[in-house]
C-alpha cells in the first residue's frame, strides 16, 4: 500500500498519508498529500504560467533539495511560518507567484516527514487526545534543523 523507496525502514501504514502510486518515481516524484478532505482540484492543473490561480490555489508544491515534490494543501503548509511568509500574496516573491517552494537545504526524506507532520497537525488541530506521531529516531536531528528553518 505504501511505496517506501525513500526509507525502507518505515513501514507503518498511516491513513492520512496517501502517496499516489502512479506518480511515485524517484527522484522527481510528486506526492499528493491529502488532508482530511479529498482534493477538489487535481494538482497537475497548477502551472507556473498561471500565477493568479496558483496564488489562490488550494495546493502548493514543496520541492526538496534533492528534487522530490510534495503537493499539499496550502493551509497545512502554512503551519510553517517560513512557508506562510513565502507564499503571502502581498509580497510578490517568486514563490507566491508560482505557488512552488524550493527548499534547497531540506532533503526529500526529511521533507516527507515534514509534510506528514503538516497533515498530522491539520488533522488533529482541534482535538484533545492526539496520538503520538511516529518519528524515526535516525531522522531526529535533521527534523529539528528543518523545524528551526521552517519556523514550525
Amino acid at each position, binding site marked *: 500500500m505504501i511505496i517506501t523507496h525513500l526509507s525502507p525502514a518505515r513501514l507503518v501504514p498511516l491513513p492520512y498519508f496517501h502517496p499516489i502510486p502512479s506518480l511515485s518515481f524517484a527522484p522527481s516524484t510528486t506526492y499528493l498529500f491529502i488532508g482530511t478532505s479529498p482534493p477538489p482540484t487535481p494538482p497537475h492543473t497548477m502551472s507556473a504560467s498561471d500565477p493568479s490561480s496558483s496564488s489562490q490555489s488550494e495546493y502548493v508544491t514543496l520541492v526538496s533539495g534533492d528534487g522530490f515534490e510534495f503537493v499539499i494543501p496550502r493551509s497545512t503548509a502554512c503551519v510553517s511560518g517560513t512557508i506562510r511568509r513565502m507564499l503571502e500574496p502581498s509580497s510578490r516573491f517568486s514563490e507566491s507567484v508560482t505557488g512552488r517552494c524550493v527548499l534547497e537545504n531540506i532533503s526529500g526524506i526529511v521533507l516527507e516527514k515534514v509534510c506528514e507532520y503538516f497533515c498530522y497537525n491539520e488533522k488533529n488541530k482541534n482535538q484533545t487526545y492526539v496520538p503520538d506521531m511516529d518519528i524515526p529516531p535516525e531522522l531526529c536531528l535533521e527534523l529539528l534543523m528543518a523545524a528551526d528553518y521552517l*519556523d514550525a
Partner: protein
Amino acid sequence: MSLRARNKIRAPRRGMTGSKTNDFETSWAELSTSLKKIHTKDASALSFEEIYRKSYNIVLGMRGTELYERIQQLEREWLDTEVHKLVTGAISPSLLLAKQLVDAQDQANERRDAGERFLAVLKEAWEDHQLCMKMITDVLMYMDRVMSTDHRKPSIYVASMALFRDHVLRAPIRPDTTTSVYDVLESTVLFMLQLERSGHIIDRPLIRHCVYMLEGLYETITEEESSKLYLTVFEPAFLEASKKFYQAEGRRLLETGDAATFCKVATERLSEETERCIDTLSSLSKTKIKDVLDNELIKNNIAEVVNLEGTGVRTMLDNDRIDNLRSVYVLSARVDSKKTPLTTAVQRRIVEMGKEINASAIASQVSTSAAGKKPEPGEKKPAEKPVNQQTVAAIKWVDDILRLKQKFDNIWENAFESDQVLQSAITSSFSEFINFSQGGDSRSSEYLSLFFDENLKKGIKGKTDAEIDILLDNGITLLRYIKDKDMFEAYYKKHLSRRLLMKRSVSMDAERQMISKMKMEVGNQFTQRLESMFKDMTISEDLTSSYKEHMRQSSDPDQKRIELDINVLTSTMWPMEIMSNARNDEVQLPPILPKEVDSVKQSFEQFYLGKHNGRKLSWQASMGTADIRATFQRANGKVQRHELNVSTYAMIILLLFNDVPTGESLTYTEIQERTRIPDHDLIRNLQSLAVAPKTRVLKKDPMSKDVKPTDKFVFNNEFQSPFMKVRIGVVSGSANKVENQDQRKETEKKMSEERGASIEAAIVRIMKQRKTLIHSQLMTEVLSQLSARFVPDVNMIKKRIESLIDREYLERVEEDPPTYGYVA
C-alpha cells in the same frame, strides 16, 4: 537490540546547509542587491527561499549581528538618499511661509495645492517603506527571530521604522535649516484643518493616511501606545490650534449676540469635530478635542449665552423655543452636570413669571377691595360683586400657575430631556414663588382651595372622568408646592363643609377622588378629618331615612308633617366657625323655633338620643335650608303659590308672619326678640328677603339697602316671580370666596393656635423618645417632623418649649449647650 543498531541517528548533512555559501561577504553582496530590488519594487524575480536561506546561513555562521547592522546601514542610506530627496523635493516654498501670511485667498489655494502634493508624496513614501520593510522583515525572519531572542534587539521592522522617523521625518528639509519635514507636515495638516473648519473641502483620506503614518511611528523602539508620534507630537499641536480657533470662534459668536445661533454652531462644531476625528484624524483624539470644545467654546461662554439679552434662555422660555432650549441644555449638560447657568436662568424666569401672577392676583384684589371699601360697609349689595371678582382672581391665579407649570413641564420634557437637576430646580422655583408672600401674607392655600371648590361646584359639570382626573391632578401638583399644608387643609375643610351641607357639590365621586388623591400626595393624617366629614354625611343620610321611617310608623299618617333632613356632624371634625355659636366669646342662645318646627326638632332629638345614648345634639340653624310653600293673596283676590327655598333663619322669620295679620308689620327689634337670631345673620337674611330685587318676599319701610333696628317689615303679597320654585339665597356668607382682612386674621389666629398644638405634640413626641436632647437637635427634629404639614416658625417652637418647661413636661438639663430633659 538489533533494532537500536539499525536506528542510528543520522547526522545533519553539512553539505546541504553551509558549504556552498559560507563566505559572508559574497552572501551579503547578493543579499543587498536583493534588498535593493525589493525597494525598487522588483521582487517578483527574487526567490524568497534563496534570500531566506542566505540570511539563515549567515546567522548560522554566527554573523547575525553583523548582518543586522549591515541591513540597518543599507536602510539608512536608502532613506537618506532616495526617500528624503523625494519628500523634500515635494515641499514647495509656499508651504514654508509663516502661517500669518496665508490670509489671502489665492495664496491659500496655492498653499493648499502644494500641501496636497507634499502630503501625497509623503504618504506614498511611507507606504512604500512600510511595504518594503514588511517584505524584508519576512525574508529576514530567521535573523529577526534570532536577534530579538538572543540579542534583545528590536525587530528589523521596528528599527527601520525608527530610521524612517529620524532620517525622513525629522531630517531638516535642507542642510542649512532647522525646519524638519515633520514641521512642514504638521503645519500643512493644521492648515488643511483650518481650511476645513472655515468651510472648504479638503482631501480627508490623504490627511488620514498621513495621520496613519504618525500613528504607526513611535518615539521608542518598544512601541508603547503612548509613545506614538501622533500622540506625542501632533496631537498637542492640533489641540493647541483647535483651542485658539475655538476661543476666537466663541468670541465671534458672542459678538453676533444670538444665543440660538451660538448653540446651533456649537452643536454643529461638536459633530463636525467628532466626524473629523473619525474621517480625517485619529479616533484617539475624539475625547480630547471634545474636551477642548467643551472648555473653550461652551464652558467659557455658556453663561453669557444663557443670559444674552433678547435671545438668551429667557426669550427662549417666553417664546417656547423648545429646539433652542434643547440645544442650550445639551451643551450645558456637556460641561456641567449641574448646568448652573441654565438652571439659574430658568429658575429666575419662573420666579419672575410666578411673581407676575401673584402680583396680578393681588392687584385685582387690591383694586376690587379698594372699590368695595368706598361705599359704606353696611351697603352689602355692591360689595357682592367685587368679592366674586376676588374669587375669580383666585381661580385665575391657580389657572395661571397651572398654565405656567404646564409650559415648563413641556419644556422640561421636550427640551431638557427630563433632567433630574432641572426638575428639582423648577420645582423649587415654583414652590418659592407660590410660598412667596408679601408681608407674611401668602394666599396660595386659600386660592388653591377655592380653585378646587369652584371646580367641584361648577367646573366639572359636563366633563368626562378623565378630564376631571387631569384637573384634580393639576391642583394636586400645586398642593405639592405649598409648604403650609395645614393652612390649605383648614381652607379646604371650610369650603368642603359648605359644599357638603349646601349640597353644592356636583359629583360626590369627584369629591372622593379628590380626597384619595390628597391622601396619596400628603398622607393619611392630612385627610383623616376630611374623610370623617364624608362619613358624617353618609351616616346622616341613613339617619334621616330611618327617622322618616320611624315617624311614618309612629304617628298618624294623615297629619301634615314637616319633612326633616338632618345632618349630624362630629364637632371635632368640622371647621370650627360653622360649629361654634360663640362669637366674640359671648354665648349665643339658640334661636326660638316656630312651634311646628320645634316639635319636629324635639321628636328627632328623642329619636336620636334613643339610638345613641350619652350624646349631645346642638342645632346649627345657620347652616340649614328649608322649603316652604307660601301663598300670596293678590289684591284682585287671586291666590299665587310659590315654593320658596330659604335658609333656616329666613324660614323662621317668614313663619313669624303667619301669626301677623295681613298688612301689619314687624320691626327689626320685634323680629329679633321673637326669634333670637344673631344680629349678623338676621341682617343678612332680612336683606335677602326684603332688599334683593328678585326675591322680595317682605317689604321694608323705609326702603333702603341698609337694615336698621327701626326698620319695619311687612309680608309682600305682591311678590312676583316667573318661577314656581324660588330660591332665596342668603346675601354673602354662603358662597365660598376669598376672605376679607378680618376673616383672614381670624383664620390665621386659629391656624397659629392649631400649629402651636401641633408643635407641642411634636416636641413631646420627640422628647419622650429621646429623653434628653440638645436644643439645636430638638429644633431640627421638630422642623423635619412638621415640614410635611407646614413650616414652623422657629420663635414659635422656642415659645412652645418654654411653655412646656413651665408646665413641667420638660426640664433644662444643661446650659451649655442648652439641653432639655423629658419629665415623665
